[in-house]
């Protein structure tokens, strides 16, 4: 009988062993980690998640994102050497193992994922108010639109490449759902971007500190409409921003990319990703948000050999008028007259630069171009804005305005800000140019290849490879 009891006891131990949850419950032991299901509970949690949306976006837009299209355009010299990713995209031969640009791509979608999480969860959180729900949702949509917009411009052929924009765009992520996503059409991507920005424009506060406000949404809408060839709306949005009176041209060109000011940002910045360099609670917090620019361009050390330098073409355009302050301020010639003459870009010669993603200068340029295209700048308002810029640059005013005048001005004003390639492609769509640096504006290498991790979903369609030569 004892045997039976012993046996039963043993069985009890055995069964007890294997059904005890506690002894199998281990989680990573760190106080900074919070289980996903309890991480976003209160509206304060959502505010912290929102900071992380800006945080990751600021990482991507610290210059790294802007440098990609700039290298592909006609503004820069061949990055030295045969290797390196910048050299590959300079030659329009990016492949899907192109790791470092995968980082920018991924960062954009991380920001989008977090924005989507906010959009789905914010309404149900403890302490949520109508104001906070509205504002957080609007900011999330703003960043979601900003990231989709930048990705679609780099990884897909431009808006207008096909008449109905049915050509392939990028994965369009409008929910935090994790199922694999194929590429949406360019039409769908732009429709979503505009829709997000219109919502953001409606709900963003007029003033929102270092975060996106209503004018940021209007400014970005102006850029998007211009990209879409919707000149009327682009002009209208640019006009709203200009007319708000909140912004004025910064006359000191060195302040476009300046050491992070301890006082306030230049009055022409509409949406800026800021660096931090200040004392908080006794500790100095140093947070560089412009290092993608600084590390690749900075040339104030006489021995500096930055990866990215101006092309002769850009240098000549910027300095042919020796009075032009833009040429004087932002460029620096080395080995002048010799065979290995180099054109340094000194626009980013600072440590903790803030990155203005949308500024008044660009609104002037958008307005002026649209006004020319819509009505030949009949009222001369476009000319006025262009001459404001020219005056600031210490060059003579123009007496009349053409599209190419605006495009030239735009190239000089926004050199190395990641703008040039998209303007050229836009002109390609409009039939105004055919070539970029001697090759067809729409050859395969003019869009960046998707990183290989995007193709981990079966059926994903990559861009055509094969370069441009």
């Amino acid at each position: 009988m004892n045997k039976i009891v012993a046996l039963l006891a043993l069985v009890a131990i055995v069964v007890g062993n294997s059904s005890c949850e506690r002894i199998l419950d281990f989680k990573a032991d760190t106080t900074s980690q919070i289980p996903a299901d309890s991480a976003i509970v209160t509206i304060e949690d959502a505010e912290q998640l929102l900071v992380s949306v800006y945080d990751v976006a600021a990482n991507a837009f610290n210059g790294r994102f802007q440098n990609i299209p700039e290298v592909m355009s006609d503004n820069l010299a061949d990055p030295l050497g045969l290797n390196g990713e910048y050299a590959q995209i300079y030659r329009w031969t990016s492949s899907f193992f192109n790791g470092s640009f995968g980082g920018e791509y991924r960062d954009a979608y991380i920001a989008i994922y977090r924005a989507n999480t906010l959009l789905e969860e914010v309404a149900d959180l403890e302490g949520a108010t109508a104001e906070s729900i509205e504002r957080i949702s609007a900011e999330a949509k703003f960043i979601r639109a900003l990231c989709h917009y930048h990705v679609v411009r780099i990884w897909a052929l431009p808006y207008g490449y096909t008449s109905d924009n049915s050509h392939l765009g990028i994965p369009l992520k409008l929910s935090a759902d994790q199922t694999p996503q194929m590429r949406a059409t360019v039409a769908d991507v732009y429709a979503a971007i505009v829709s997000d920005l219109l919502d953001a424009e409606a709900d963003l506060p007029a003033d929102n500190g270092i975060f996106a406000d209503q004018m940021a949404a209007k400014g970005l809408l102006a850029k998007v409409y211009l990209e879409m060839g919707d000149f009327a709306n682009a002009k209208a949005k640019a006009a709203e921003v200009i007319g708000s009176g909140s912004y004025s041209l910064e006359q000191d060109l060195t302040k476009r990319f300046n050491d992070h000011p301890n006082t306030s940002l230049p009055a022409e910045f509409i949406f800026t990703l800021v660096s931090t360099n200040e004392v908080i609670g006794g500790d100095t917090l140093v947070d560089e948000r412009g290092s993608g620019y600084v590390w690749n361009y900075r040339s104030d050390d006489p021995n500096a050999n930055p990866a990215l330098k101006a092309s002769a073409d850009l240098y000549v355009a910027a300095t042919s008028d020796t009075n032009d302050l833009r040429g004087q301020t932002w460029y620096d010639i080395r080995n002048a007259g010799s065979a290995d003459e180099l054109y340094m870009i000194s626009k980013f010669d600072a440590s903790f630069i803030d990155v203005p993603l949308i500024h008044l200068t660009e609104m002037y340029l958008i307005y002026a171009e649209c006004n020319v295209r819509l009505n030949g700048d009949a009222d001369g308002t476009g000319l006025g804005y262009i001459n404001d810029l020219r005056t600031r640059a210490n060059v003579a005013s123009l007496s009349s305005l053409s599209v190419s005048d605006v495009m030239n001005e735009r190239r000089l004003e926004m050199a190395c800000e990641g703008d040039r390639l998209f303007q050229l492609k836009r002109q390609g769509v409009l039939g105004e140019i055919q070539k970029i640096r001697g090759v067809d504006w729409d050859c395969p290498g003019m869009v960046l290849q998707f990183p290989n991790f995007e193709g981990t979903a079966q059926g994903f369609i990559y861009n055509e490879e094969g370069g441009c030569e």
Partner: protein
Amino acid sequence: MKRFSRFLVALSLLIGGAVHAQSVSGTVVDEFNEPLPSVAISVDKGGATSTNFNGQYSLSLKPGKYAITYSFIGYEPVVKEVEIKGKQIINVTMKPASNQLDEVVVVGYGVARKRDLTGSVVSLKTKELTDIPTPSFENAIQGKAAGVQVITGSGIAGSGSMVRVRGVASISAGGDPLYVVDGIPITQDYFLNGNRGGFNTNPLATINPNDIESVEILKDAAATGIYGSRGSNGVVLITTKRGKSKKLAYNFSSRVGFSNPTALPNMMNKDEYLQMYEEAWVNDGNVGVPELPGNRMSWAEAQAAEGTDWVQETIRQGIKHGYDFSASRGFKGGNFYAGLSYNDNHSYLAGNSYERLSGRINADFDITKRFKLGLSTSVSRGVNNRIDAAWSGGFGEAMSRALPIYPIYYAEDEYDDDGNLVASAGDYWLKGGISLNPVAQRDMKDWTAIEDRSINNITLNYKLNDNWTFRGQGAFDYMHFEDHIWEKPGYDPTYKDADGNFLGRANMYPYSVYNTSGNATANYIKDLGEDHHINWLIGSEYQYNRIKRWDGYYDSEAVGQIRETGQWVNDPLSYIEEYAFASAFTRLNYNFKGKYYAEALIRRDGSSKFGPNNKYGNFPAASVAWVLSDEDFMANLPAVNFLKLKTSVGKNGNSAIPSYQWFGYYNVANNGYGGQTYRYPVIRENADLRWETSTTYDVGLEYGLFNDRISGELAWYRKQTNDMLLNVTLQGSTGFGSWWDNVGSVYNTGVEFAIKSRNIVTDNFTWTTDFNIARNYNQITSIGEYSPDAVSGGTNDTRVVVGMPIGTNYLVQFSHVDPANGLPVYLDKEGNETYTWDLQNRVAVGNVMPDAIGGLTNTFNYKNWEFGFMWVFTIGGDIYDSSSKRQMGVVTDWNMRTDLFDRWQQPGDIATYPRLSRDYRTYGSNTEWINTNLWLHDGTYARLRNVKLSYRVPQEKLTKNVKGMTVNITGTNLITLTNFIGLDPEIARDFENATDRNMSPNITYLTPPQEKTYNVGVNINF
């Protein structure tokens, strides 16, 4: 329940009651007349016992005829047929087993006669494990167990082997078998120290092969099923030695040898290099004096340079020596074994050695007649004097960036542009940094990895009666590892103090693993009548594993203290990783007349590694066996003395993944954007994460012919693995990097054949041949909704492709060199020729898994002489010589191999390699790293793994105190037959992670070849 107990009582009365029993007693001794304790004694008509420490036993039997069987591990069972009339003394002498089928082998949670097995088990004994000088026991398995692939690691001292049982069924989860030492699953993670320096630390290296009594490899579901969730890649059971002899017995053995690499790289010398470099320069249309890589030297300086043979500078003749001493005996009420071992292996790589000091004590005590206590404890220390290897430097650098034009030392004082002295004549030449001068790197970096390991267990055995035995076991397996790296001042020339003096840098990377486990089993053995035999096991097990790691890096301020004391200056951050398994299992064996066997088992496992929705899994297995040779209808086939047919089906799991992977979490951090606190998701939760499960069917036929002159086994199996654990690269647009998911399926199927033939058996001369061959094929049948790029090995050169085997080389096809212009011609996906190298044209062109593997051993004994040699072979399978894409591709900052002499030079040349160029665009590429099947080679090889000649000194020549003495000479890897143009065709490179280890064997990247060794040894018993 009541009825059952009444039945039991009645039964026990029947057996133990009224009849007048007679006593049978005796002593069992071994071939040296030494008493054998713990010999299992069973009586055909019921009843069993075992011998005590004096080899004595007694049985109570009714008068009648009986067959009494005496069995003991490693000995041939003895059957005595007796007629009992009164008290009787039966003394038995047992001989070491020559018949494998009657051996007793270790199985999960018990032992069994090999004859009685329904599963597939290979058993290897001490002699087979120590006949080849290997630092780590698993190397010795190679070629000896059908269907067990062992790829010996590189020539770096202390490197481990890769063991694959019946193919590989895992992709991201560990594909190694489960290692169990004396009943305890031990720590066996190859990636605890990552891949630092191009080397994975071998967790098995601290186990002394000389302490091992036997190794059993469990191959099929019937055998591995009892290990449930961890058995799907096979199980290796390691049993350590215990005392047997009644008298105190000592054993001393020693081995001394030297080693050389099995192959040397054919790197270009200075003149060859310059000639080829210049040719590339001219081919590219350059004019004038060529510019050398990095402009560290002018062309004229390079031409005037003496030139350095960096390969010779990084190798030497290896020296190894080892000493083992053990003492053992049985004593009244128990036995003990104590072993002490020292092994020092200086590999052929200059500066590299692995030293192991280990001790073991195993003891058993009979506390009462029924209650036994067993203790095992081992302590070992492995000291690895490390060097950088492969991609990290040293010999790897000698095959790559250390150009033959570079000197080791400055010949003259060196000044910078401003006229300041930067280096004096005789200083190391460090113009290209430390890594371009492997001699300087080795000399200026002290690197020692110390691993302490202690495996301990305590076993309590309570034999309630003839039927019931209860057993409890507790174990503690402790490992502490420290990597100490000291870079001397000047190692990093940019690292200086304010006065410009060079500073050194100390780094220390420690971790500890605490692996505790316990199990309890109850075993019920019962014979129902004469024909029905039941053996029922029920048990439970719990294992808790804790890994503690410390942040490693230390800067110069701490140098003094770390260097002098090995202590931290400040407590660095530490991290804990934990996991646990809780399990219950039961197994029922039944045999009818020793002819028909059936086994059913089930194990239920719970693991902390899996998501709350799937924390527990059930793993059943069933098997049957039929000894045909005992059937009457076989009587007219007298040549067949044994024939057993067996088949099994069962489900196993694999759970070898890192902890916490199901767990989704957010991080909170301060000072984010705008100085604000922020939180963000880091890992997606996967609450469904569950075991990878394999369902295995197999059929086996064991045979013995001509009275076991020929014996062996033939087997077929098919293993279907579903819910594979994959560390999947997520689509970037999900906003996450990667996660663990259960995805897709793979199957492995194969046949195995083993034969042992005692060709000649005479009194003075015997010749025995062992041969085995196994073919395995595996195929991935699904990877869910992911694409091949979702799972990449760390080296990126093999892919997961549906319809193809694991480890498929997924490459652009190289067709030929165009004789007209010397350009490489590739094939696109449709097979059309193209000059453009495009990753989108990658196709499955090969795979790293061999078609067949095997071994052939011949052993000759003549009087006191024994001569044996073993060939191992691999048929098929591809080798991807990954580093050759830089050694023989675009001319870069790497040295080149002389194979490249066969390159295109002028129109009309039919050449293997294209025209030389420094510009990858010449080759139609957008990158200099051009993976094509030009670097893919047939992996077939045969290797003379071991040759051994030994001589047993005749007893009469020995003094009285010496019981036996053997001297031997051995050589390993003396001959390798292969068409592979690279170094060693047997490749287990350094791996980044388990995925890499599963998918990228046979990928070589500057991997040092294995060593060829010559050894002299002596073994003395006294």
